């Protein structure tokens, strides 16, 4: 780089451009970012399960034989392994979203006090568990 002479006769080198560090692999640099990526990646489990259920609805519309075929496919060993993996993904996804949920909401004021982050998370979990158990009971009841 060429040096320049300023108005008062002082020779100055032109400024160097600042150094920009690369971002490649940023998510592995911090355990917090790894947890964030787990939240993002486990969204795939939600998507895959939605696809599985959509397939079920489609097969149902195609008649009894198609529906029974889908039901037996759901009972295969591969399907059960897939569902266990998806369940794990869903639990991690729910956990990570409830973790961040208080930060995504406008403050809730009850009786003049702001509802704590912990209470929001506990409420989320309670609703999730109650709904899951209710759906499970409904499924068991419909089989009997």
């Amino acid at each position, binding site marked *: 780089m060429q040096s320049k002479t300023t108005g008062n006769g002082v020779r100055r080198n032109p400024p160097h451009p600042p*150094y*920009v560090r690369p971002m490649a692999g940023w998510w592995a*640099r911090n355990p*917090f970012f790894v947890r*964030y990526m787990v939240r993002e990646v486990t969204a795939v489990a939600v998507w895959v399960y939605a696809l599985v259920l959509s397939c079920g609805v489609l097969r149902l519309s195609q008649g009894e034989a198609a529906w029974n075929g889908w039901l037996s496919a759901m009972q295969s060993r591969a399907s059960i392994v897939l569902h266990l993996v998806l369940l794990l993904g869903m639990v991690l996804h729910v956990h990570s979203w409830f973790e961040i949920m208080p930060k995504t909401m406008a403050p809730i004021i009850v009786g003049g006090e702001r509802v704590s982050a912990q209470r929001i998370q506990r409420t989320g979990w309670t609703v999730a568990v109650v709904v899951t158990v209710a759906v499970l009971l409904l499924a068991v009841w419909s089989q009997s």
Partner: protein
Amino acid sequence: MAEPTRMIEIQMLRYRPEQESEPIWQSYQVPFTEDMSVLQGLQYIKDDIDGTLSFRWSCRMAICGSCGMMINRKPSLSCQTFLRDLLPGPVKVEALDHLPIERDLVVSVEPFVKKLEGIKPYIIPKEERALSEGEYLQTPAQLEKIEQFSSCINCMLCYAACPQFGLNPDFTGPGVLALLHRYNADSRDGGREQRMEILNAEEGVWSCTAVGYCSEVCPKGVDPANAVNQNKVNSALDYFIRFLPNSQSKKGA
């Protein structure tokens, strides 16, 4: 003050643009006492070992926001991080992540300051009042809405904690958006319309993916992730409200 008896290794990411084409690590052995902050460790290096070291600092009591740096990979104020808590070392010190390095631990702050100016970080009164009419009053509940966000000291630790800012430096970022919220949510302020364009932009709240690390590292207990994410609702409402008949909203797309 007791004589220093123990030593700790401080490893520092150095960048002297006239000397190195990319940053390099350099190690220093520093004597320390129980009451020494990382900043004091750096001052020892500069005064007694290597005068070529560059870093910013001023108040030494976590209020000026100058001495932010990565300490053991975490965005921290070096004045309130103590060497005794980092034993046995080594302590790794780097310039704040995601910001261009000018020299050693000194990062470029100009883009941040421009963004800060852009949001008009001051109260724009709803209506002009004469001095004789007295002060603008606020209830404790109204103060509560803005108080934590007004604690921001512009130290930029939240920018070093935000990978979305690292990936896209045009993102307005957590600190400035938290301050934007601080003024928009102020009961005395009438400048919301002027700030919504910045908030609504893709580089505004919508570039945030709720990583949430910004709020973890804030040294003043501000929750920028909350400010940004509750404004996604405000931004969405601002968008849809224009479709209502007799809407006063004049926001362009």
